[in-house]
């Protein structure tokens, strides 16, 4: 590479021009609609702006107001409630399903499609569906519970059951995605390991614990990272199913951001909240990367 002829250099230059040409539109789009707004939201988080009157510099006031706001802490609490309910459920059920689907069942394809269908459906449609299913008086779920003699709860109308309802709908929707990714991971595990283990007398749960899970750990790690980041931003299903109610019991962080920005025109305050959410996700991801070194095994 030390000696580069003039001709090659020219070629390189042309090549770079073409690369820029093809990447340009996308890069400009990203710059205009993503990078600049993100930077602007950072600046805005130190100001007050209602779109109609000029912005006013506030320094750290927005962040201080945030920490002193009961609504913010409630939203944070509800977001964590969602995460701790949703994540373990979707992982364990997803893994169970993936293991089942990995068997040589004849109807395997039908099930794979059936479980993946909710993943590709729009959240609004799914949330509306669940809103109906969970209707305490006319819903299918309570009717079925009634058949076995259980009086179903008020679901989305009961502050104690509203978040579990949302978790239930979310798990149902995302199960197929988790299953699909884990299934791909399972199929990537070389049969040699199982063969060797069974020669050593391992079977059943032992096989799962010592062979499958460790070898699946990179895939599990991927699913956890993705799901966690997504669940910090839970919003669509909440917005459609409960709109944060009853009595604010399901108001989550993104809901609070949207309300403050677009209902209350407090763009600075909402930006500050976005950056707090970003910091939270960033920290959690760092922790996960650190855990990855200790707990994830690559083949």
């Amino acid at each position, binding site marked *: 590479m030390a000696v580069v002829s003039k001709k090659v250099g020219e070629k390189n230059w042309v090549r770079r021009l073409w690369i820029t040409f093809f990447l340009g539109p996308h890069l400009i789009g990203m710059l205009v609609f*993503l990078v600049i*707004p993100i930077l602007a939201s950072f600046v*805005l988080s130190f100001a007050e702006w*209602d779109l109609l*009157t*000029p912005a006013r510099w506030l320094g750290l006031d927005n962040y201080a107001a945030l920490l002193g706001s009961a609504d913010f802490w409630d939203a944070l609490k509800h977001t964590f409630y969602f995460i701790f309910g949703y994540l373990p459920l979707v992982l364990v059920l997803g893994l169970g399903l993936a293991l089942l689907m990995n068997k040589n069942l004849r109807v395997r394809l039908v099930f794979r499609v059936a479980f993946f269908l909710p993943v590709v459906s729009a959240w609004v449609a799914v949330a509306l569906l669940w809103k109906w299913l969970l209707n305490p008086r006319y819903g299918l779920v309570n009717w079925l519970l009634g058949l076995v003699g259980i009086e179903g709860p008020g679901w989305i109308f009961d502050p104690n059951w509203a978040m579990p309802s949302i978790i239930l709908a979310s798990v149902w929707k995302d199960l197929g995605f988790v299953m699909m990714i884990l299934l791909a991971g399972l199929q990537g595990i070389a049969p040699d390991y199982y063969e060797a283990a069974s020669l050593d007398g391992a079977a059943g749960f032992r096989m799962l614990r010592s062979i499958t899970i460790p070898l699946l750990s990179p895939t599990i790690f991927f699913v956890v990272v993705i799901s966690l980041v997504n669940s910090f931003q839970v919003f669509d299903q909440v917005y459609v199913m409960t709109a944060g109610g009853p009595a604010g019991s399901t108001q989550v962080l993104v809901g609070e951001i*949207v*309300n403050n920005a677009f209902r*209350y025109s407090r763009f600075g305050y909402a*930006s500050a909240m976005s950056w707090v959410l970003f910091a939270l996700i960033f920290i959690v991801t760092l922790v996960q990367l650190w855990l990855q070194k200790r707990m994830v095994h690559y083949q």
Partner: protein
Amino acid sequence: METRMSFIRPFMGLVAGLMLALVMVACGDNTATTAPAATTAPAATTAAAATTAAATTAAATSAAATTAAATTAATTAAATSAAANAAPVTITYFTFSAAPDHLKDLDAMIKAFNAVYPNITVKVETASYDTYFTKLQTLVASNTAPDVYELNYENFVSYANKGVLYDMSSLASADKTFEPSIFYPRAYTAFAQNGKQYGLPESFSDVVLYYNKDLFDKAGVAYPTDSWTWKDEIAAAQKLTDAKAGVWGTYQPVQFFEFYKMIAQNGGAMFDASGKPTVNSPQNVEALKFMLDKFNTYKVSPGEADLSSQPDSDTALFKDGKLAMWRSGIWNFGAVKDATFKWDIALEPGNTTKAHQFFANGIVISSKTAQADAAWKWARFFTSSTEAAKIRVAASWELPALTDQSLFDQYLKQTPPPSRQIVFKALETAVTPPVIDRESELQDATTKELAKAKLGQETPQQALDNLQEQVTKLLQPK
């Protein structure tokens, strides 16, 4: 998969708004700096005063109205000759109330307008009420505000305070044939702020008591009268409720707009005359307790779970003949007109006094418009011309806020309900919603605390104590 992009999703929502910031900065927009700082003092005085102020009765003004109508006709004739050879102008008009049901009626009004002013083209843009204000504030912020647009009274105050509206006072005084007295006075003054007229009232509506005559007859209960109080309502509701048949005695949603009216019916208010919050006054606590008792103590009102989870489920319940009494807006006449039973409306039962919700939409002109004269002509025609008013009444597109009773003759003749004059009688005790600069936050906080009380998480006293604290904070300068 949505996963790749999900990392930035929380910020995506802000992107649109933030872009505008940059555009504004880039364009060196300094006109906005002339806007006065938003006042934090509540405009609630209007609301508080409204309770006590004697409303001009429609009947009393009908004499004056006749002359007003004549004036309108005269204007039309005069304007025709003046406008015939004027240069062509295009103005934009942005509305939420026309779409989707009344676009045809709006077109008819524009056609009538163009018969008088052939040189002014009105370009209509619409948005649903849910998205209207988000879109509007972006348009205003990006200096592309429509020349003329619609605002409901609750949102009007903050727009007026932010200096983005055209002061119509000069336009009104320059227009020699314009008579403010043709408007229903409460509605006209609602669209003034700090002594300036920023809007013309376009339409009004109020809330009355609907009742199912068949259910009353079946239960042998006398129909509601003007002298009914809350006690009479409860007593009747208890007789009318039939849990086995799924029939409920009475219903009103527990939310901000019902609350401000109910406390007014009990002599209370959310703010005193000086604008200080009086949310947790004893009258207010008693009113909230009454609202909740209907659900929890007397069990004469359907709870959330008893209504289906669809919006407007109370409308459906009434229309199905499962609800005997229903506090609801006159805009629902159309929705229940095909009901298979006989129904009518009455004044709402009050407690210490009568009170009825009053809602108004107004037409405003952007302070940045280059076509103020054309904008004024359209605003005036749309809100107060006989032609437009007739189209509006015929279409039941709310009601024009005009005092000319002859316009309403056709409206009053329609049935159901037979007692349509109640719509106007209720105006005598109309109360406008309390309005502060941070109005959406006030409404949301109220509805949330009321919900907590309804669920039994807080007593009515605790809920209103909490709300008092939150409202006090909302009034503080940011």
